[in-house]
């Protein structure tokens, strides 16, 4: 009886741990970035160009897919709670006035992974939470 309950708990725990991996879009960073998770507020601050440094003061390099890419739409809506057009408005307002750099646009997910792997301080996203060599997945708190 106690053994069965123990097994059941293990199973629930496994499911809980696995659940972030089951959602559609994953947040990826360069392995040099510290930490295993990121808060929703911090992620939104990064992508609206309000936070430009990691907590250890390393500059953040932001990668994005094109505005009409399905993975970008999913990431913007589900992870940031913003429509892609609102993100674009924010980037345009800040970049054309010389106050911030606009995120770096890559053409597809392969390039996204390659650039995040190669760029210290980089953050990006992919449509699946598949584990790749040289890329770290951040859990959304």
């Amino acid at each position: 009886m106690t053994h069965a309950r123990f097994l059941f708990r293990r199973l629930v725990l496994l499911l809980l741990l696995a659940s972030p991996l089951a959602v559609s879009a994953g947040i990826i960073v360069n392995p040099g970035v510290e930490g295993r998770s990121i808060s929703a507020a911090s992620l939104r601050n990064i992508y609206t160009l309000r936070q430009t440094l990691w907590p250890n003061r390393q500059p953040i390099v932001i990668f994005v897919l094109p505005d009409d890419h399905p993975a970008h739409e999913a990431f913007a809506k589900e992870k940031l709670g913003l429509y892609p057009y609102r993100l674009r408005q924010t980037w345009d307002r800040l970049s054309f006035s010389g106050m911030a750099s606009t995120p770096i646009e890559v053409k597809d997910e392969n390039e996204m992974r390659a650039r995040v792997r190669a760029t210290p301080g980089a953050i990006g996203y992919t449509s699946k939470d598949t584990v790749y060599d040289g890329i770290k997945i951040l859990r959304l708190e």
Partner: protein
Amino acid sequence: MMASRFSGWNSLLLSGLLATLPAWADDLAGPRYHVQGFAAQGLIGSSDNRFFGDSEDRVSTDFTEAGLHGSWQPLDALRLSGQVLYRRAGESDQDGLRLDYAQADWQFYQTDVTQFGLKLGKVKLPYGLYNETRDVPFTRPGILLPQSVYIDNSRDLLLAAPGMFVHGASVQKYGAIDFLLGWVRPDFDSESVEYVFLGNTRPGKLQGKGTLGARLRWDAPTDTTLMLTYADARADYSPGSPDSLAAGKIRFRNLLATVQQRLDTLTLTAEYGQPQGNRRGFGPALPDDSRTVQAFYLQGEWRFRPAWELMLRHDIFYRDRNDKNGRQFEAATGLPAHSMFARDSTLGLRWDATPSLMLRAEYHHIDGTGWLPGPDNPDLFSREQRWNMWLLQAAYRF
């Protein structure tokens, strides 16, 4: 979009030059420079009056905007940016190519949640929501900005000016706060600005003096933006020869309040300003004058499809809040009362055909000629009080 890593030699040289500053880090691994641009062409027709060219009962093609914007980050804490702008807008803007702005921004304090910086050069002036990017068609809510608050007649005053701003930003639990506080010398010496302040183009020179500018912005977690902008500008007039005007002085003060609420695909925006203008010492040909303008608009934008947006706006402009219908002005000067106000109802449609191509259509119904461009409509008596205007615009970005 073009981006590339800057060569090591130059960053080495610059960091060497600036190595005396202790807090200097140089860890940015991303591209150090970035170039972007846009080009847009408009078509304008009006039932009466002329707006940006010969639009009355015809189609004016005389509204063209193009810009090339570049920024370069030689060091993590230093950003150089500027924009070259080509603009034609009827008789009021025939300057063509010009340097829009060129500034250096030094972020002297940076943590993950707070930044302070100093920018100097020919700097962009903070004024309301849209002014700093007013010539970038994609960033505007319509083909035209609300003319009450962003009056194109005095755009030269508001664009950019030599000077400096201290700025800061911080993200906290209660939202994000940012501020700008600075001193600039704005450009009063343009034909359309002379129209606004001196009633006509004049042979002398209107020279901008020191101006204080400040803006405080709060973005609350409820997707609400609250903002206050303040400006206090002065200009001196040096008469030409011959000139019917004496060496007078102008002072212009404005406090602008902004509220924006974003609700899913809906954006509601209101801005209210009460600019105060004083004119004195110009002699009998241009009597001393002091008046308060009232400018206000209410605007709704609705993204009803990912690439489609509908815009509705009501925009109100009174050149003298104590003489809204212009009767006193007409009695005193014999000039038409309707040049003292304008009430504009606007309906606009935006289609982002691709991420880099935007098409827009807009219809205005206007009661009053308060912000009609002077150079396009030199004869005050041939202006019509009630008029309609439609505009089409295609804009491309890269």
